């Protein structure tokens, strides 16, 4: 199997996420596009875990950690990224909900940070 296949897929996913973030006005769809980019990063993590040889073989571990049985930790990193994505989407949806309650709108190019809430541009 070629090494470049998962990387190309991940870069295309990331580009799709960038396109969605720039294209959509709906805040929830923007959040979904951000999740798409996070999935691309997860795919990069797992692919690099499987394909790149670690250079941390001889590193002495810290005192609080167990010695690494093997240096491949990309899957654990992907797991942590999934947890971060869950937290991010939870807070993001709460913010979107609160903004919808305040302004009855979730179009993110109408968002103004002024006090009066009017769009100045």
């Amino acid at each position, binding site marked *: 199997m070629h090494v470049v296949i998962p990387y190309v897929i991940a870069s295309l996913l990331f580009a799709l996420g960038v396109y969605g973030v720039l*294209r959509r006005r709906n805040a929830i*769809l923007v959040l979904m596009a951000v999740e798409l980019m996070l999935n691309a990063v997860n795919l990069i993590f797992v692919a690099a875990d499987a394909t790149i040889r670690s250079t941390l073989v001889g590193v002495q571990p810290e005192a609080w950690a167990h010695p690494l049985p093997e240096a491949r930790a990309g899957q654990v990193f992907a797991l942590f990224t999934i947890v971060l994505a869950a937290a991010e989407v939870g807070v993001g949806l709460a913010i979107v909900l609160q903004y919808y309650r305040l302004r009855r709108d979730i179009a993110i190019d109408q968002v103004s940070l002024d006090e009066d809430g009017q769009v100045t541009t």
Partner: protein
Amino acid sequence: MLTRAPIGPSDDLDRPAGPAALIGAGVGVGLTVLLADAFHWTRYDLPPTGTARRIGEQVFGAWVLPFEVLSILLLAALVGAIVLSRPDLGARPGPAAAAVPAEPVPDPSTESDAVSARLERIAARQASAQARMRQAAAEERATAAAAERAAAAQPAEAATSTITADPVDQARKGRAHDVIFGAHERRARVGDDMPDESRTMEGTATERPTPQRRPTTRRPAIEGTIEGEVVEDRPALPSGKNDSRNDGEKAGGEDA
């Protein structure tokens, strides 16, 4: 918010596609070229399938401190999401939000034909229900008046009836009994035997499947007859209610 979002391009949901497509394609092509240049056409054999044991050993071994920090972060995100989304804890609508008009009240005249037809059906059903209740009350009054007149005219015939007590009082008691226990006694039961013989169960059993026959037997009782019919009428009263409801629904359907 999301469920009413149309699928596909729409003017009020999307920004112009040109710059977004340009930047997205640029990012995609750039990353693809970068990674393809990094790896060229290197082939490699797939590593052995990862197991949950390995993941668990790593998470609870080398990465236990980031794991705990992530748990605290998840807790903070949970608390933050609750504080943000609860209306009595988070930010309240300010004076700027008060200027925002509320949701428009739906106007019945602008509804579609199907919805207006359904509303008319509901109104007709309610009107027929009210008419049914009024008719039932009138029938009850007429029955009571007929019973009183019959009792005053022929008090001796009360002794020949199956009920020996005062017929008016018995009829009233019987109506109350039917109102209270009618549904219980009219239920289907195994081995249909009635211990009380004064209750003509077969009358109701024959009358219930044939509601068309009921008004012809009912109307003489309304117009005033002797009280023997009142006694006969008493077990049939709940079924009469059922029949009148069915008639009312039919009438409502015809009205609609």
